[in-house]
Structures are given as structure tokens and as C-alpha cells.
């Protein structure tokens, strides 16, 4: 390592050591609402499980069917957000969320050959539900446009990355290694369905 690079590393280390929370300008500039919209669903376990399950299901069905979700899912989130704000439809309730987790898990576990149209309808319905649920936490001071842009970007990134990871994991052109990978994805579906079933029971019990 040469001297110049070493100096850069030392300077970087010193800066990192002195880093503090910036109670600063990005919030005051209201751009923080974009990050709030983007991070909001990522801090909710229901969103995380449902989005991941949707992405894995789409990825397991192949790129030809899954690629529609890159557009459909963020649009569904935006539509849900609008519904939530305009009509006050905030959440479909824990039983609906649990039911959706169960359905997605069962479809994965059964390796069901879901048609592209049905897949898009499920993704849009899910995004609608979760978009509306996220609208419930919009404050009066929140910039709705930035929040919506952040939410849509997060939805786009999450669904695209999960699908891409699943497609790569399946390695469709990989020959004999494919079998156990497909079983692993189905096993994850079994886990997701089990979580959905448990939560359904819990929602009915409370």
C-alpha cells in the first residue's frame, strides 16, 4: 500500500471514529420523507415477510412471468397508498395479512405453476393491501409525494432483488444441482405457510 492510500485510510478511519448522528439538513429540506417512505415498510415484519414471499414466488416461476411484477408491484403500492389516504382504507386486518402469507407459502410449497395473469393479480392485491397499511402512518407534516416515491422505490428494489436472487439460486441451466435448490425453495414455502397458519390462528383467537 503506498503512502497516499495509507493517508486516505487514516483520514477515513478518523472521520468514522468521530461520526455522530446528523440532526441536520436532509429532514429540514423535507427530502427525509422520501427515506421515511422507503424505510417504513422495511421496519415492519409483515411487509418484510409478504414482500419476500412474493418475490421468491415470482422468482421461482421464472423471469418470463416474474418480470411483470417489477412494474405491477410498485404501482400497486402507490394505488394502495392513494386508497388509504383518500378513502381512509388503512389495513385489511391481521387475518387478511396472515391469509396472504399462508396463500403465498402454500403456492411456493406446492410449486404451483401460477399463470402470469394470476401472479400479477396476486401481486397487485398484496401491494394494494400493504400500500394502504403504510398510508396509515402518514403524518400531517409528511410530504406525500416524497413518501410515495420512497415507498414505490423500496417496493421496486425489494421485489426485483428478491426475484433476481431466487432466479440465480435456482440456476435453471445448472443441470443436476437444480433439484435440491427447487426443494429448498419449496421448504421455504412450507416455513412461510406455517407462519401464515400460526398467525391466522392467532388472529382468530384475539
Amino acid at each position, binding site marked *: 500500500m503506498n503512502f497516499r492510500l495509507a493517508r*486516505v485510510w487514516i483520514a477515513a478511519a478518523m472521520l*468514522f471514529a468521530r461520526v455522530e448522528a446528523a440532526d441536520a439538513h436532509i429532514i429540514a429540506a423535507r427530502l427525509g420523507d422520501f427515506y421515511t417512505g422507503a424505510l417504513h415498510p422495511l421496519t415492519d415484519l409483515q411487509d418484510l415477510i409478504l414482500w419476500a414471499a412474493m418475490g421468491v414466488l415470482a422468482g421461482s416461476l421464472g423471469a418470463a412471468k416474474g418480470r411483470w411484477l417489477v412494474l405491477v408491484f410498485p404501482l400497486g403500492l402507490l394505488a394502495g397508498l392513494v386508497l388509504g389516504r383518500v378513502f381512509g382504507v388503512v389495513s385489511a386486518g391481521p387475518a387478511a395479512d396472515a391469509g396472504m402469507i399462508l396463500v403465498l407459502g402454500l403456492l411456493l410449497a406446492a410449486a404451483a405453476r401460477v399463470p402470469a395473469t394470476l401472479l400479477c393479480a396476486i401481486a397487485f392485491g398484496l401491494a394494494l393491501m400493504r400500500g394502504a397499511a403504510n398510508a396509515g402512518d402518514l403524518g400531517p407534516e409528511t410530504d406525500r409525494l416524497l413518501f410515495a416515491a420512497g415507498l414505490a422505490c423500496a417496493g421496486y428494489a425489494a421485489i426485483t432483488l428478491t426475484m433476481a436472487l431466487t432466479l440465480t439460486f435456482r440456476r435453471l441451466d445448472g443441470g443436476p444441482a437444480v433439484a435440491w435448490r427447487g426443494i429448498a425453495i419449496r421448504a421455504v414455502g412450507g416455513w412461510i405457510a406455517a407462519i401464515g397458519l400460526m398467525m391466522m390462528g392467532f388472529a382468530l383467537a384475539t
Partner: protein
Amino acid sequence: MTGNGRTMSSRVVSSRAVPGLLVAMAALVLAQPAFAHEQVAVGGGLVRGLLHPLTGMDHLIAMVAVGIWGAQLGAPAIWVLPITFPMVMAVGGVLGVLRIPLPVPEVVIALSALVLGAAVAMRLRLPFAAAAVVVAVFAVFHGHAHGAELPGSANPLAYGVGFVVATGLLHLCGIMIGTLTRWPAGERLIQGLGVVIAALGCYFLAQSLGAAA
């Protein structure tokens, strides 16, 4: 020549590293906590769910034994098991959540370790349907025990995720141990492990019968 090459490459590295470092620094400095959902005790619920099957020795050995037995039985048990077991267990979990009692749950859970350990030790090759029924019955009882804890958890969803993942990983652990059956020495080792699991099952059975009496 070599010296020049090294200098050039160092310059290239440093000139590439600086923007990367600046981006990393900017990302770190601009990082903000998400003032979003204040989900209650997600971490605690997750940890509690993960630890519940791991800290109960009777659950732990039975789940590992299920995986080993599945590997001994081979296809289709080895792949049907990890897909369906969590779902069947969740049925028991729902019964537990709804407070629907099952007869002598502690005895059946202890019995599951004894039976599954014995099956592994004896390399019992039941027809797939019969093996599935045996495992399903035990799965319902194990799920019931986990499910009964769920409503008391600070975050039921996180707890559910934790215990399903922990159970799945225990199966995976058992299946990986079960792959030792490819070697004769490994097969004997696994049978020995089955004896140990069955013996522990006997101990838990005696304990639960004592408690029941």
C-alpha cells in the same frame, strides 16, 4: 518496469478507492434511523421463538431425529419432510394458540423422542405413508407446545418466525447428519446417535409419567 507498474497500479487503486470511501462516508454520515413502525419487541420475540425449540431438549432431539430418519428413508421422505413438517406442526400450533387441549402432551413429546430415536437406531424402514403419519402426529404435539407460548409473546409474529425457522434448521441439521449413512462407519455412528436419542426419550418419558402421576 516493475516499480513503475506497481506505482501505476497503486495510483489506480488509490484513485478508485477515494470515491468509494467518500460514498461510504456519505452513506454512513447520512444514515438516519427509520422513525416508522414501532413494532413492539420484534428482536425479543424472534430470539424467544428461535430459542424455544433449542432450549427444550425433548423438542431438539426429536426434531433432529426426524431429519435423520428422513435421510435414512431417502426419497421421497427426505424432501417431503422439510416441506410439510412445518405446516403440520403449525396445525398443532393453532390448536395451542386457540387453547384447545391435547391429551398428555408432555408424555407424547417424550414418546416422540423415544420412538424416533429407536427408528433411527434400528434403521426402521416403514412405508412412506406410515412414516408420514407417525411424524405428523408427533409434529402436531410439538407444534401445540410451541403455539401455546405464542399469545404470551410480546410480538407473536416474530415469535412464530423464530420457532418455525429454528425447527426447520434443526431438521436440516438432522438431514445433514443423516447423509453420513453413505459410509458404513457413518451409519453405525448414526445408529449410536439414535440409541442416545431413544435413551433420552426414555428419561423424558419417565419424568413426564412421574409428573403426570
